[in-house]
């Protein structure tokens, strides 16, 4: 009986100590919290990054920027935060939850998205007021949604909405499925989902670019790997890949 108890104690100790050591080792992946609109671009970046830096692995958590911001402020173990707007990043940096420097690594523009073939013959923002169309936007509070609303207010348009999707990919997918006729998404979404989705060009004065900042999270569990990834995302090499996906880069 006594011997049995000693064995149990030994096993427990071994398990605990191995758990303790492994959590601080650097061969655990770097956890990147990134806006949903970065899904495809970051997948490509991940491939390229792991070629260039085989010692560091990266994992992603894609969601709405606001939700990610909330998770980080509640203590989620993120190493990197890449937001689709400045506002969410500023909220975190103002309370010191992200480390300087905060870098804008990409810029996006909005695009009018329609399903393949543009069956409803949509040509401009004004069409969003048509009552024979199913129109979708992102919810207010999500960068894509706020940006779209700024655009529409600037152009003096009030659309008849069928739905407000919680993130831009959900919106784009519904348009691709032709369950919605039109919506305002990012140029990068058009690039990613083509050809099932098409973009309708908008005149420049109706449109503008929106910056995507990236930063290392304070107390990141994998600080070194995070900084490596951070530098990579801001490099020329990454900029090329980002542009292929439809982003503009500050370079």
């Amino acid at each position: 009986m006594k011997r049995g108890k000693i064995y149990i104690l030994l096993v427990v100790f071994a398990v605990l100590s191995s758990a303790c050591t492994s959590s601080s080792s650097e061969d655990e992946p770097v956890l990147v919290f990134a806006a949903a609109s970065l899904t495809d671009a970051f997948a490509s970046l991940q491939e390229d990054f792991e070629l260039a830096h085989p010692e560091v692995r990266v994992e992603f958590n894609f969601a709405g920027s606001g939700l990610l911001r909330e998770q980080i402020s509640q203590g989620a173990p993120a190493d990197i935060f890449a937001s689709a707007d400045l506002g969410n990043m500023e909220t975190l940096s103002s309370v010191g939850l992200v480390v300087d420097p905060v870098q804008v690594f990409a810029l996006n523009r909005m695009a009018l998205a329609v399903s393949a073939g543009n069956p409803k013959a949509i040509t401009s923002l004004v069409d969003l007021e048509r009552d024979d169309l199913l129109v979708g936007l992102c919810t207010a509070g999500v960068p894509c949604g706020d940006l779209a609303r700024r655009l529409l207010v600037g152009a003096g348009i009030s659309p008849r909405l069928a739905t407000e999707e919680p993130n831009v990919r959900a919106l784009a997918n519904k348009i691709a499925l032709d369950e919605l006729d039109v919506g305002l998404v990012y140029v990068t979404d058009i690039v990613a989902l083509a050809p099932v989705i098409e973009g309708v060009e908008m005149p420049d004065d109706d449109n503008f670019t929106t910056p995507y900042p990236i930063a290392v999270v304070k107390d990141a569990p994998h600080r070194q790997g995070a900084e490596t990834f951070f530098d990579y995302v801001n490099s020329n090499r990454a900029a090329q890949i980002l542009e292929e996906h439809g982003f503009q880069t500050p370079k």
Partner: protein
Amino acid sequence: MRPRTDTSRNSKPGSSRWSRNPKRPIAPIGTVPLLWLFGLIATLFFLLPFLALLWQTPWSELDTLLRRPMVAQALRLSVISSFAAALISTIFGVPLAWLLARSVFPGRTLVRALVTMPLVLPPVVGGVALLFAFGRRGVVGEALYESTGVVLPYSIWAVILANVFVAMPFLVVTIEAALANMDGRLELAASTLGASSWRVFWRVTLPSIVPSLVAGMALAWARALGEFGATITFAGNLSGRTQTLPLAVFVAMESDRDLAVALSLILMVIALAVLVALRGHWWAR
């Protein structure tokens, strides 16, 4: 001194027959400390998140927050769609449960598996499937749209459908079990008395499973109230038309944490109110 066997106090189930002093009942088999411990841990596990929610509630701004029109609209939609879903689930779910429990037909096992799937699948998957079936370009939805111009998504009907999809399985499973467990000989007795098969069902079978029926409806209603994934995928999200309370909470989490908490509070209050009202009254056999 009270007599040892005081039968007037023994009408409630669970009351102790063996207590000398009715004010301090002693369980006849004694308590089991291990069960108490685990039960307590389980209770705490459920209690703590709710307490944390109450802790985070912005009590001083609650009034202002709750006055926003989107709150009343979300509440209205949640209440309507959850009760409608419970009703529809009952009207169609009871016959289905009856078929599964009483009839033998080819493919019965498959049907039972299909009906149980929404219990296992992530609700978003259910929403996607509903979209592919009843959306504007859906297998059935396209025909509907081409012939009548009716689009199911983005309407309250889509919300109700999504709710029914995830909630009805709860009712079917409950009722099927009840039917399987009831004394089927009562139905035989009714038959010998000349009752048609409909009369047997309506006057004997159903009344025999009333407690399970209520429990099944309550379960379905509760599931429908909390439904999110299938709703947002199939019905979309628009305040006043399809944005139920769970959707409103999710959207609010993006930008207005206080609002999200306030909305969550409403959901909790409704759920608690109905579940407490039902407990003991109907659930006990």
